[in-house]
């Protein structure tokens, strides 16, 4: 009956060495408060901003990846508001001429419009100790470069919103634009949601801010849709509030009502000349752009990966890096993917270790795959070796040192078969009499004779042939 209309506002912290408008180092995460500051970060009197060219190029790349217009005039504006986490009491942002405009992203076959993406500087962090009459301010994060991306209200469900975020993160990571991990605050999300009956105008939209995981984005949307549905069904009106998300209580709560909306008094930043993005500049950025997930997906499918696996790997920057590297060692792509997405992932998640911090190397996984493919070892043997290979062992070395190589010499197998058949005339007679299953006991004996290191199929074939012949 009601249709949800969802828009997202995503902030990505860029992977630069310095802050957006000063040469203050950007690697502050986890460090002591107020140790990564410079005069501009503190908003000291007399300081001036300067534009970080790397941040501009990352924004251009990101805009291009989202199919945005990026050419032409773009400039910074001051967004004026008083709050201790903004030491100048204004943010340098972009207003009517953002660096990227009118893009889109395909999510599950649906086209989600990207209205704009712009550059701005981040605020510091305030903490509010419980029961204290003061707050504490850390300006290490103040001044960090951010891309703010705003979608059109084209998303329809909480799941779709979550999927959209996954795609954005994958793109940002693939391009090296941002680590985009919500846990480190490098990807933050606000949502807008309203309900309407199809055919009728959009309803009043509610904003939910400060969502710091994809899960809370989805949950808060689910909650709000349910809440607004109840309000409307009861004949009430939805008020245009700004809500926060209570993670513990799993509910939204009102932070601000419309009346308290700020007048930001935007005006062009006088300290920064505008940017004119020329076609040549755009071409240089495009030429230097790393492979996007969508392109990677197509390439992996062509290399033989199943559709679902190509998608999963393409949109995970660590998996795709690993797989690409492993493929250069001549191992089959799908088989590598099977290992990666199966036993390797299993082993990693049991230990809570991410792929990039494990000791498994692409070369070693490729070797493992090649050993099985070339019948040097069986699949079961490979699985048995996996724990050691995960800890950094070279499977080729292991196989060599332990003499694990499967017996492929038919003569050796035939000799073993012959010995076992000779030693078990009663069983052989039983088989020939029609009890086919009795061959299993012989099979087991032959395998034991060979120390288990023989291709089962081969043993069965030779055993079967021998039993038949001797008949």
């Amino acid at each position, binding site marked *: 009956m009601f249709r949800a209309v969802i828009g997202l506002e995503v902030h990505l912290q860029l992977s630069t060495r310095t802050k957006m408008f000063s040469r203050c180092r950007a690697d502050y995460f986890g460090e002591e408060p107020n140790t990564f500051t410079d*005069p501009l970060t*503190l*908003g*000291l*009197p*007399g*300081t*001036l*901003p*300067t*534009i970080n060219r790397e941040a501009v190029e990352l924004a251009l790349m990101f805009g291009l990846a989202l199919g945005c217009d990026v050419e032409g005039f773009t400039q910074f504006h*001051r967004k*004026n508001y*008083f709050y*201790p986490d903004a*030491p*100048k*009491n*204004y943010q340098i942002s972009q207003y009517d001429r953002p660096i990227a405009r009118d893009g889109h992203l395909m999510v599950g076959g649906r086209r989600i419009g990207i209205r704009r993406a712009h550059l701005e500087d981040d605020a510091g962090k305030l903490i509010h100790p419980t029961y204290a*009459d003061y*707050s504490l*301010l850390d*300006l290490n994060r103040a001044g960090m470069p951010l891309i703010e991306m705003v979608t059109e209200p084209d998303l329809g469900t909480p799941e779709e919103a979550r999927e959209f975020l996954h795609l954005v993160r994958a793109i940002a990571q693939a391009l090296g634009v941002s680590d985009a991990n919500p846990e480190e605050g490098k990807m933050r999300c606000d949502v807008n949601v309203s309900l309407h009956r199809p055919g009728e105008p959009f309803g009043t939209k509610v904003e939910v801010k400060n969502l710091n995981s994809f899960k809370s984005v989805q949950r808060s949307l689910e909650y709000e849709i349910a809440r607004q549905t109840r309000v409307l069904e009861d004949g009430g009106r939805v008020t245009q509030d700004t809500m926060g998300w209570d993670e513990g209580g799993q509910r939204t709560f009102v932070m601000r009502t419309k009346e308290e909306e700020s*007048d930001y*008094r935007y*005006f062009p930043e*006088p*300290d*920064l*000349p505008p940017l004119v993005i020329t076609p040549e500049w755009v071409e240089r950025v495009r030429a230097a752009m790393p492979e996007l997930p969508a392109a990677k997906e197509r390439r992996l499918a062509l290399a033989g990966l199943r559709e679902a696996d190509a998608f999963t790997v393409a949109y995970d920057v660590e998996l795709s890096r690993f797989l690409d590297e492993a493929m250069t060692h001549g191992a089959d792509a799908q088989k590598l993917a099977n290992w990666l997405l199966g036993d390797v992932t299993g082993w990693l998640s049991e230990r809570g270790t991410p792929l990039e911090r494990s000791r498994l190397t692409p070369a070693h996984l490729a070797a493992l795959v090649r050993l099985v493919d070339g019948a040097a070892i069986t699949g079961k043997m490979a699985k048995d070796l996996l724990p050691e290979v995960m800890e950094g062992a070279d499977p080729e070395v292991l196989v060599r040192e332990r003499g694990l190589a499967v017996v492929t010499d038919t003569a050796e197998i035939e000799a073993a078969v012959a010995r076992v058949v000779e030693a078990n005339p009663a069983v052989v007679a039983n088989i020939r009499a029609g009890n086919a299953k009795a061959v299993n006991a012989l099979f087991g004996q032959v395998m034991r004779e060979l120390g288990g290191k023989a291709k089962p199929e081969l043993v069965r074939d030779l055993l079967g042939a021998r039993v038949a012949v001797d008949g």
Partner: protein
Amino acid sequence: MFESATTLSAAVLRGERRPTDLVEEALSAAEARAHLGALISLVPDAREQAARVEARLAAGETPLLAGVPVVVKDNLNLRGSRTTCGSRILSSYVSPYTATVVRRLQDAGAVIVAKGNMDEFAMGSSNETSAFGPARNPWDVSRVPGGSSGGSAVAVAAGVVPLSLGSDTGGSIRQPAAMTGVYGFKPTYGRVSRYGLVAYASSLDQVGPFARTASDLALSLDAIVGPDDLDATSLDTAPRFREALARDVRGLRFAFVREALAGNTSGVDAAMARTREVLEGLGATVTEVSLPTLEYGVAAYYLVATPEASSNLARYDGMVYGSRAAGVREVNASMSATRGEGFGTEVKRRVLMGTYALSSGYYDAYYSKAMKVRRLVADDLARAFADADVLVTPTSPFPAFRIGERMDDPVAMYAADVDTVIANLAGIPAVSVPAGFETLDGRELPVGVQFLAPALADELLVSVAAAFEAATSGAFLREPPL
């Protein structure tokens, strides 16, 4: 100390004078002239700076301003010195960094001895809004020296130091220069770095020198002009001011701005007439030109400057640095109390005006409109420069007024800027040159004439100043009767 910086630095380089002695002389002169209120604080390490210059000289260096003691306006940051901007809100603030322009002076061997008094946050035309008391005109201590760089002007006019730096947003170097009888130079916007200058109105502010001779103007500008990576609005130009001193003005076209010739005192009119004769005597051509937008300049200036200022001054909230109101528990109340207590009336007036002009519903009528009028003023000047190399106006319609005379009427105070604001709006260079005296109440008061040139023609203005000085034998560059 009335010797020029040119003379002093040459003597130092010849080994005849020592930087440490010059510093002592400047400090003694500062004390002797303390009643003029020119200075807010003395720089704690002045003697150490002088010692470092001596060490450099001993090592064979020959810096341009070797050993010259200077004063910089108290809105210029110098590491380790108080930088108050004439305001209670920064009365105990000590800079942890140095402004590029101040560092360049020090690199040139100058010694920063003191911070100059100023109107609070550079908002004013009389140096009366300083939280640390007014500065006084050495020619008549009951009168203002002009503002907002009043202290820097007085320090040079009264012979405390030969050179000082001020800042000019709507005339704040030129007007006090005219009122105290010294040179005051506002460079083309962008030729001198603003990094470390506490911002008042970002698209209008420029740093410039006060001096008593044209050669000192050249020396100081050669030391400070040039691009700065830390200021994105700075221009990549190299200074050539000492070369410009020798160029004569024969054949140059001067145009007197008609609209600026009315409404002045008799002393100002006389100075303008005399200037015309001098220029003609130098072989220049003198005509008149009309600048119809002149009368709109002040309004456009205030409606561009106050919005930028309201934003630039938002940072003074007592949260991280500066003073904070005592005992206020909630953050917004605290910020409001801090600013209510820490800012003076003129600052409050301009912050409120600027906030209003930017606020929702008023932006188009005020700030946007003012930025368009700014374009009209710039175009008008460009048109005038099509047929003239230099424009001429009085620097101020009247000489120094009495302390307290205009404080109750902001509109009257603002009107004093009518001749100067257009240079800031258009970003063009301008210089005030001592050009005469007017006697009021039995006291001689200096009168200045302003020369304006197109953007980047700063060196031309130094040529004009030098030529004028030579032609008049420096008759208007006198020591005040102290």
